[in-house]
């Protein structure tokens, strides 16, 4: 019988320490793990390095952690939806490493897949090439991008079971899929929690093998609430 990984949020999040690297799923608010980010706001940690497509939207999301001074560096493809990020950069409080979106997704996927890195044609002849090794295959140049393995990943899913099998919804899947693979300790906030066997095995997006802790998403953040609130207790 697979292990029940449902944990109180404080227990799951206690794995996060200062100086760690954290991959975060979501795309400018779509599928952002806001329950976990909100909890992280209450924790006494600093010097975090974040791998995320962006820093949230407006005043909401990872930008809040930046404004609290918890983050030293963000590796992201686009931070234009959170004006406070540019302010933090200009004031020297934050380093942003701009990375092409497809490259960032693949860095995380490869980190989870046990690969050392990958060759991409994206960014050849641009500053994305700077400091990177260029490898020719069949006469065509590619940038060698090292994979990224993070200490922690924070993701959000629409459905999940107690072992951590996850099913996302619509475009909220985005970086949650790759992020869920790439870390030593993966915490998933789940909107609708099911017992093992209730989810269709053919429909699982992220296998529970990648997930270490399952946390109930804050009900007010649920897009579509399906399961009764008691389903977590039902599964114990």
């Amino acid at each position, binding site marked *: 019988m697979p292990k029940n990984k449902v944990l109180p949020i404080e227990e799951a999040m206690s794995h996060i320490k200062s100086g760690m690297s954290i991959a975060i799923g979501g*795309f400018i608010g779509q599928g952002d793990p806001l329950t976990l980010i909100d909890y992280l706001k209450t924790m006494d940690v600093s010097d975090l390095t974040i791998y995320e497509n962006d820093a949230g939207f407006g005043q909401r999301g990872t930008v809040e952690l930046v404004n609290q001074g918890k983050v030293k560096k963000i590796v992201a*493809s686009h931070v*234009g939806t959170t004006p406070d990020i*540019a302010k933090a950069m200009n004031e020297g409080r934050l380093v942003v490493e701009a990375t092409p979106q*497809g490259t960032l997704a693949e860095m995380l996927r490869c980190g989870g897949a046990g690969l050392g890195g990958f060759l991409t044609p994206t960014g050849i002849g641009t500053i994305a090439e700077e400091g990177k090794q260029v490898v020719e295959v069949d006469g065509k140049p590619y940038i060698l991008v090292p994979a990224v393995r993070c200490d922690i990943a924070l993701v959000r899913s629409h459905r999940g079971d107690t072992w951590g099998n996850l099913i996302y919804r619509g475009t909220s899947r985005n970086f949650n899929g790759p992020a869920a693979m790439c870390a030593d300790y993966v915490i998933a906030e789940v909107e609708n929690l099911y017992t093992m066997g209730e989810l269709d095995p053919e429909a699982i997006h992220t296998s529970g093998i990648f997930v270490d802790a399952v946390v109930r998403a804050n009900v007010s953040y649920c897009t579509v609430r399906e399961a009764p609130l008691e389903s977590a207790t039902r599964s114990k």
Partner: protein
Amino acid sequence: MASAKQIIAQRAAGELKDGQIINLGIGLPTMIANYVPAGVDVVFQTENGGIGVGPAPAPGCEDRDRANAGNQPISLIAGGSYFDSATSFAMIRGGHVDATFLGTLQVDEEGNIANWIVPGGMLAGMGGAMDLVTGSKIVHIVTEHCARDGSTKLMKQCTFPLTGAKEADVIITERAVLRRFPDKGWVLEEVAVGYTLDDIANCTHLAYTVADDVKLNAFGGDSGDASRSVLGL
């Protein structure tokens, strides 16, 4: 009278070919979906993880989990699907997207594109643009011919950091259409209503030749705005 952006979007839609898979950038490029010619069936991919993007949902029917890369609410047409970002960029880098349309700050003689950062300006990031210009079979630059200060965006050589090297295939502005060929470089194919060949020469710094069959008064002007709001944006 249509605005410059409407003229560009309408002319750009004329490049769409039946059966193509298309990715549209945020802003002006997204407007192209409103001008898909009748009889042309294209499928829109959105890089945050969807294909088969359909009309915007009716007010009140928006869904937070169904949005495009600009965070506008979307629906999917029958046969559409969702996927994660790694899969989305496998599609894009892997050459499975037929054409992309995106705006620019600068484009130059060699087809270099600079559209993601102004040196000394506020950093936003390149998002998916570097992958899109690298992986798409045809890269359309859709932009107003000149920047707000009146300087041309069609330059001899880009001065801003590049998004892609030698990737631009077609430039569509409110004044002209230019296409780049491996042997001939940029060729001026069309001039919009209200402009002459001299006008285009005066506001274009990249080298080009004029097509033998260049079309004058080819688009724009009072031809009307044929928007039919395919995506309702």
